[in-house]
């Protein structure tokens, strides 16, 4: 409770129900499950049956779904139960959790630091030991960047590996749910539990379920890992470069062959992302109109005014900004120049990866261009905020799995992450690399529980 007051991680808690479930489990324990009797708090973007689901927005302030998202249902079917709903950027649009209607979330690493975003409540709760593991969603880095900022593990799976059914949509062609955990073993267990084909999601991949946790293996000798030269940006702190070097050295010592590669279209990834994602969002968010559920403004004399008031009162500034951008890039006369071109560039970015994956098993990059920043530091400069996603968006655009691993700290003591990008559906391999890396990295997240 004290933690909640200081860190503001939860939007909704379900402690009483969780306690009941825990007692139920204790009376009849069953350890033959992946997540036996494990309480889990989840990002408030997953619809939970009978439990308020806000997506961090005022417009869903009163929304209680009558259905359970496929991913959370999968967790419960594997023995876990719900601890509460975690704060996040409004409709997952943000990189610092500052766009949430329910207030900033604080990074347990230090007072006044952002926990990253959009899965900021998830990363903060995890790092602060308020949940043993959690899940987030990642559209442009929303799992990996907060993981990097809090010294935790975050995996964005291959697009289509986890069902999107029942997750409040941000950008449908990019959104993907994934685990956020303390270590790789937990990550593999969580992924195994939450993933799987779902006929209710047309973009879900129909294939046999993989046993990621059972197949976890730290022998990565002989693997080839690509080092893309384009993952360096202007004014990037030296510490990031040093971290990258450290990562390479660790992998080399494990018998990995490092190969310099080029992903020439990487520089277009961020602008491409900031066209595709808002375009889809502008359409996905049209359903929040005050007619059937959610917030409805009492002002306005006709339907159009009701829409205008509902949406201007219900959405925050960042969401409005992206709806405007998205509407603009889809408008007639601009569609070809923006949306269509962005789709073409997206194909080129994907092709870059495809070509290199014939030579390498995985790609190593930094997760973010900086460590956690201060609350308010970037709120008035959206572009600098967007730049935080520069290393994470390519994997979303290409639909590839990508893992952020805690790898070290900067001189302020703030954690930093490295990213492993894998081939499509090659989660097992990047988890294995991560597993070996974790054992040899010696990183330890030292968080003093200052909020107690």
């Amino acid at each position, binding site marked *: 409770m004290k933690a909640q007051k200081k860190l503001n991680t939860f939007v909704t808690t379900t402690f009483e129900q969780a306690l009941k479930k825990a007692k139920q489990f204790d009376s009849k324990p069953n350890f033959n499950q992946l997540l036996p009797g494990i309480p889990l708090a989840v990002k408030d973007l997953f619809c939970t049956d009978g439990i308020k689901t806000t997506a961090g927005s005022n417009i869903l302030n009163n929304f209680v779904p009558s*259905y359970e998202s496929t991913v959370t249902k999968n967790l419960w079917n594997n023995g876990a139960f719900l601890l509460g709903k975690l704060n996040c950027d409004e409709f997952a649009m943000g990189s610092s959790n500052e766009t949430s209607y329910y207030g900033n979330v604080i990074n347990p690493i230090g007072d006044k630091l952002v926990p990253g975003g959009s899965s900021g409540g998830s990363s903060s709760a995890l790092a602060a030991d308020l949940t043993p593991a959690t899940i987030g969603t990642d559209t442009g880095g929303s799992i990996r960047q907060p993981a990097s900022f809090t010294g935790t593990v975050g995996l964005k799976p291959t697009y289509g590996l986890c069902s999107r059914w029942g997750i409040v949509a941000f950008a449908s062609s990019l959104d993907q749910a994934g685990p956020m955990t303390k270590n790789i073993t937990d990550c593999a267990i969580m992924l195994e539990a939450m993933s799987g084909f779902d006929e209710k999601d047309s*973009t879900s991949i129909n294939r046999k379920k993989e046993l990621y946790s059972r197949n976890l293996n730290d022998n990565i000798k002989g693997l080839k890992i690509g080092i893309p030269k384009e993952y360096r940006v202007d004014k990037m702190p030296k510490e990031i470069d040093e971290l990258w070097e450290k990562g390479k050295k660790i992998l080399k010592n494990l018998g990995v062959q490092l190969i310099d590669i080029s992903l020439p279209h990487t520089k277009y990834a961020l602008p491409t992302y900031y066209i595709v994602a808002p375009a889809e969002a502008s359409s996905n968010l049209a*359903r929040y109109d005050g007619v059937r559920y959610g917030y409805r403004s009492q002002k306005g004399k006709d339907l159009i005014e009701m829409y205008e008031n509902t949406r201007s009162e219900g959405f925050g500034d960042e969401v409005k900004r992206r709806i405007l951008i998205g509407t603009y890039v*889809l408008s007639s006369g601009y569609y070809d120049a923006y949306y269509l071109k962005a789709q073409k560039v997206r194909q080129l970015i994907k092709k870059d990866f495809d070509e290199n994956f014939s030579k390498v098993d995985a790609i190593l990059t930094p997760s973010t261009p900086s460590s956690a920043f201060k609350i308010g530091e970037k709120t008035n400069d959206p572009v600098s905020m967007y730049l935080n996603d520069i290393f994470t968006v390519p994997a979303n655009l290409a639909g590839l799995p990508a893992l952020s691993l805690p790898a070290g700290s900067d001189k302020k003591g703030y954690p930093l992450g490295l990213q492993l990008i894998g081939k499509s559906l090659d989660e097992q391999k990047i988890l294995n690399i991560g597993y070996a890396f974790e054992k040899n990295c010696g990183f330890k997240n030292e968080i003093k529980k200052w909020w107690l």
Partner: protein
Amino acid sequence: MSTEKFNYFINGEKGKYEVIIGLEVHAQVLSSSKLFSGSSTKFGAKPNNQVSLIDSAFPGMLPVINEECVKQAVRTGLGLNAKINNFSVFDRKNYFYADLPQGYQISQYKNPIVGEGKVFLDMPYGSKEIGIERLHLEQDAGKSIHDMDPSNTYVDLNRSGIALMEIVSKPDLRSPDEVNAYIKKLRTIMRYLGTCDGNMQEGSLRADVNVSVRKLGDKKFGTRCEIKNVNSIKFMQMAIEYEASRQVEVLEEGKRIDQETRLFDTKKNETRSMRSKEDAHDYRYFPDPDLLPLKIEQKLVDDLKKSLPELPDNKKERFIKDYGLTSYEANVLVSEKEISDYYEEVAKLSDKKLAATWMMGDLFAMLNDKGFNITKSPISAKHFAELVKSIKSGEISGRIAKEVFEIMVESGDNPKKIIESKGMKQQSDPKELEKMINEILTKNKDKVDQYKAGKEKLFGFFVGQVMKLSGGKANPQLTNEILKKLLKG
């Protein structure tokens, strides 16, 4: 075939104008569930009783394509002699309205499931080909109800998400009559295929009508206006007539036609401007990221093609060839599958030509009168065939047949039984007839003399007397023959 000439033009003071019409027909796909959800599509349910979380666009809900709707669209495409596109894409058409829960309609924009095709119309001036531009699948919206409450609008989402086929014609239609024939032809084809029930009262078939005019002889099309959502053929015809005349008036005044969307007011019988081109919605179409492109295997198309029923054009040919019907008769008898089925059953058991005549005459008149569909006919095809057989064999006369027909309608009885029990059999025994006629001639000796003296008009009088004496059962042909013979002698 008639040699009648096409003659639908608007006469302005400055000359004759040709009317160019193109239709966008919205046909509801016959399927048990909606295009992207499992909700029922049954008509007439209580408001908002056939609405799933997907149809009402709850957060996180995703569309999943209903394969039956895809097959129905392919079948329809094949019935329209059209190209089936093995690759097509669902797009979002974005706009806000209270009865559009998602804030967008899922439709097909650049890549429709069906491409170019054609249908043939039988017009009094010959067969006319109408080009089909495309057919695409899309979702229907819900229904806003404004008249239930003075200050509130109610929304019924039962229709929301139901599959529609939008069938876009080329601008090949030239008159309200052609529009009538075109809609009826589409309806017939789809009803044969079982892909749309064509029920206009229930809104299963509606159309947006594009109208423009040009001076007769001009090659360039004029500026068109689109009349939205007209739901009966009669209203379409009225709207076209009004709109074409309006456009001619505007042109004759030396003004220009504004490209715009118009509404047809059925009460005032006029079209009114709804929005101009400048105010037109920017629908911001883009491929729906929740759905993968629709890929249809050629094998599926081939299999569907093989399983198609005989279509009206082919059936018509067959009726002309096998049953000796005229083009007109065949056309009428294939207009509904049920009518053609009924006819074929009757024709199998009786005289094909006579069956057609009697069906199109008395049977249709009776059904029309009672407002019955042929499937509800009080006379079964078997009984009707019996009746035709009795007429053909001369067992009863045409006049008696009408009486028998009436009794059949009332009782539903077998005509054989009626004829026998009421003693309605025609007197066709020459000996009996001769006896009867001699009796009459003897009785009317004076008239016989007058006839022989040249007053031939009296022939009718003698026939009348025979009919009177026989109770109308004398075989008219035989009566004539015998009378002539005896009067000569």
